[in-house]
């Protein structure tokens, strides 16, 4: 299960992010307003944490791929690298409504 989590790490972070920003906005809607500035900042902070996690996975996977000695063992790391990369771009994209308005 650990190796599956590693392979799918970036995509898992992406999922946590898009569920999280929606949950934060919904919670804000109950407590005050969905677009309340303080809650938007909370959403932004959450996005930053997710982005860092996605970048870290990408960087770590790239490092592992550079250091590998057996070319047949790279599939999981490649998947992790690609997934982390996709997650990085997607998190930035889905944070834009918070950053630039909507």
């Amino acid at each position, binding site marked *: 299960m650990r190796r599956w989590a590693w392979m*799918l790490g970036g995509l898992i972070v992406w999922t946590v992010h898009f569920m999280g920003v929606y949950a934060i906005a919904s919670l804000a809607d109950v407590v005050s307003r969905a677009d309340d500035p303080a809650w938007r900042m909370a959403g932004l902070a959450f996005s930053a944490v997710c982005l860092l996690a996605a970048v870290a996975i990408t960087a770590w996977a790239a490092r592992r791929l550079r250091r590998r000695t057996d070319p047949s063992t790279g599939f999981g790391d490649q998947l992790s690298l690609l997934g982390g990369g996709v997650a990085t771009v997607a998190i930035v994209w889905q944070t834009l409504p918070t950053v630039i308005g909507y």
Partner: protein
Amino acid sequence: MNSETGFDPALYDRFPTAGERPAGELEDLEKAWCGPRGWEWITAINNNFVGVYYVGAAMLFFVLAGTLAVLMRTQLAVPMNGFLPQETYNQFFTVHGTMMMFLFAVPAVEALGVLLLPQMLGARDLPFPRLSAYAFWAYLIGGLAFFASLFFGLAPDGGWFMYPPLTSVAWSPGINADFWLLGIGFIEISAIAGAIEIIVGVLRTRAPGMTLDKLPVFAWAMLIFAGMIIVAFPSIILSTLLLEVERALGWPFFDPLKGGDPLLWQHLFWFFGHPEVYIIFLPAAGAMSTIIPAMARTPLVGHRLVVLAMLATGFISFGVWAHHMFTTGMPTISTSFFSAASMAVSVPAGVQVFAWIATVAAGRMRFSTPGLFVLGGLTIFVMGGLTGVMVAMVPFDWQAHDSYFVVAHLHYVLIGGMVFPMFAAIYYWLPMTSSRPLSERLGKGVFWLMFAGMHLTFLPMHLTGLMGMPRRVYTWLPDRGWEWPNLISTVGAFVFAAAVLLWIIDMARNFRPFGGRDAGNVFDGPGLEWLPTGLYSVRSIPVVRSLYPLWDQKGLARDVEAGRYFLPNTATGERETIVTSTLNAEPQYLQRMPKPSAWHVWAAVFTAAFFLLLTVKAYWPSVVCGVLGLYCILQWCWFLDRPMAMKTADIGAGITVPTYASGPSSHGWWAVVITLVVAGMVAALMGFSYVFLWSRNPADWAPPPGLSSMAWVVAGNAAAAGLAWLACRSLRLARPRSGAVAALMMAAAAALIVGAWAGDLDAWLATGLRPEVDAQGSTVYALLAWQGFFAAVVALMGLYAVLRWLAGHLVAERPSTCDLIALFIVYSAGQGTSATLLTRLFPGG
């Protein structure tokens, strides 16, 4: 290569073995895997039979639902037409959509998996063939009963997504809506059973050496598809349960007058409904990624990117459900998040499309029927994808919502993304299944008629939609400019129907009981499914060293057929397959496969009868059928986990593996864990419903019972989990009374789960909260009812453990039954504790 399980990969070098195989081996294999005779075809469980039945039934439902579509288009051909009465039309469009989505699209791709995966993975069969057969019979009986409701005027008429309040008792009295709610809930259980089979099959029964980078892309697609079913389908099961309970017992989940909210239905439905689109699309995309390289005679360009794109589609599909709800008044920032996610989903789909185009460009494409269908599907899907990006934009969606534009969009996506690939798959793989190819001449006719009919029908609908024609109207007024587009759409529907008719003729011709049957690998396919096979699948299970083994491993078919690889015989004299590890597919143990019996068929019949009788409110006969169904399932389980004559077996070239496994390395453990993930999803979504309804009216929420009763509930559940764990440990001590101690501990654990649940229920009853009064009551008692169901199952399991011990089947050498019951008890304890903590502490007093 690093070993995952301690197996030495150097042992693969012993294959292919040299020399002749002993005489009689093949005959033994044929005897163990003999086909059904006479009426035994009903009880057959081999994927060669069940897979064909399954695909056949799915295509039958496609034809039936398509017939309804043609009748609907006839009604809509001209303004103010009287061909179909309004009520009949409403039933037709509801049943058409429901059958296409629930009885054709998902089961068809699941069926394709059941049919193809064993051969594609080099397994004798999938690990739970009886479960596949049960899922098929449940689906067939439930589906036919659902369709038959049309003939009695009892068919549902609230649209395929059954929004309340239209489907509440006030607006939909009678049992029409109940047919949908109970029928679909039941059929989805069958889909989940199939998904469990596919996940465990792909992860645990691959040919040795088939590491994840050599896993066929279709198998990847089926794995992701099945995983998505496990996460998404609990949502539809829960929503149908809640609406049915509201209709039958008056618990107000969706009634705003009592604190419910119809939007809860939309959230639950679309959390299932949008991933459903990708659940349908991904296996079809997997088929495209398999067929295109074969037809273009070159490896798939960007294989790893395609795998990643499918995984990414699987994940992001759960983040776009609310784009079906842009017009419901959600906060603007929330719609912006979902709009962004909906546009992002086109990226992984685009990766696959470009990979297919690049493969076609890189190879030498053959424009035979499967080739035409994949290219046609690609074209249609891209067109549907483009309108998908349009409706992902909130302002455009506001204009196009509930208009014929959306009807055009969804049909382009589903027909291009699923129907055309399905036909490509049928034309491509049928020679493998029936040993006889379909007609190329007729096939090309089918393609061109279908391609033309599809565009004629749905392209004008973009215009009718933009001109303001709403969907789901049984007729329309003249002089609105909709005459020509509607007439053309109707003509197109008939052209499409002609294509399907021609295909039926071709299929009837193909399955004729006379003539030659030696098609072989007609398209020079590179996958293991094109190896020569019998009812036992491949004669010997090859070592896989390439993603395209038949292209890259020279002489593979000859050596496999000569029995020079793994398991060239029946090592134990019974039906069996090799279970391998999840990542590197290293041989772990030999699984004994079940033989045909009637128990699963009777179980399916009684389960279907239980739901059908419940729908028509025949409660006592329904209870009787439920008990009989349960008895059949227990009979089926009773013959599992029996003694093995041999503890180890030679699976070829002197390599021996155990014939039994328990715990996380066993296939049964995986199946139970996946089942519990389904249960956990239902519970989590029920928790979401509780919080969601609280957020609608937080001031109306009453204080929960005192914390002292909560402590007892938590302590009872914790003690049950501890006892279940201790029962497993004590059984493994292998002392003379280990079985008795384990059985009694298990029974005590079950009693504690029941006691904790009863304590929780009692505490809530004492507060005066009632389920029919308000939303807090309905959600709290729904959580209690769900836990009560688990408490009942756990009680049954405790009794089962005692019976197994009395029959001498609870022994240290075979701890699987004990492990699996313990797993279930630990989960139930966790679920009960979580529900209690949620309802007692949130929002608290």
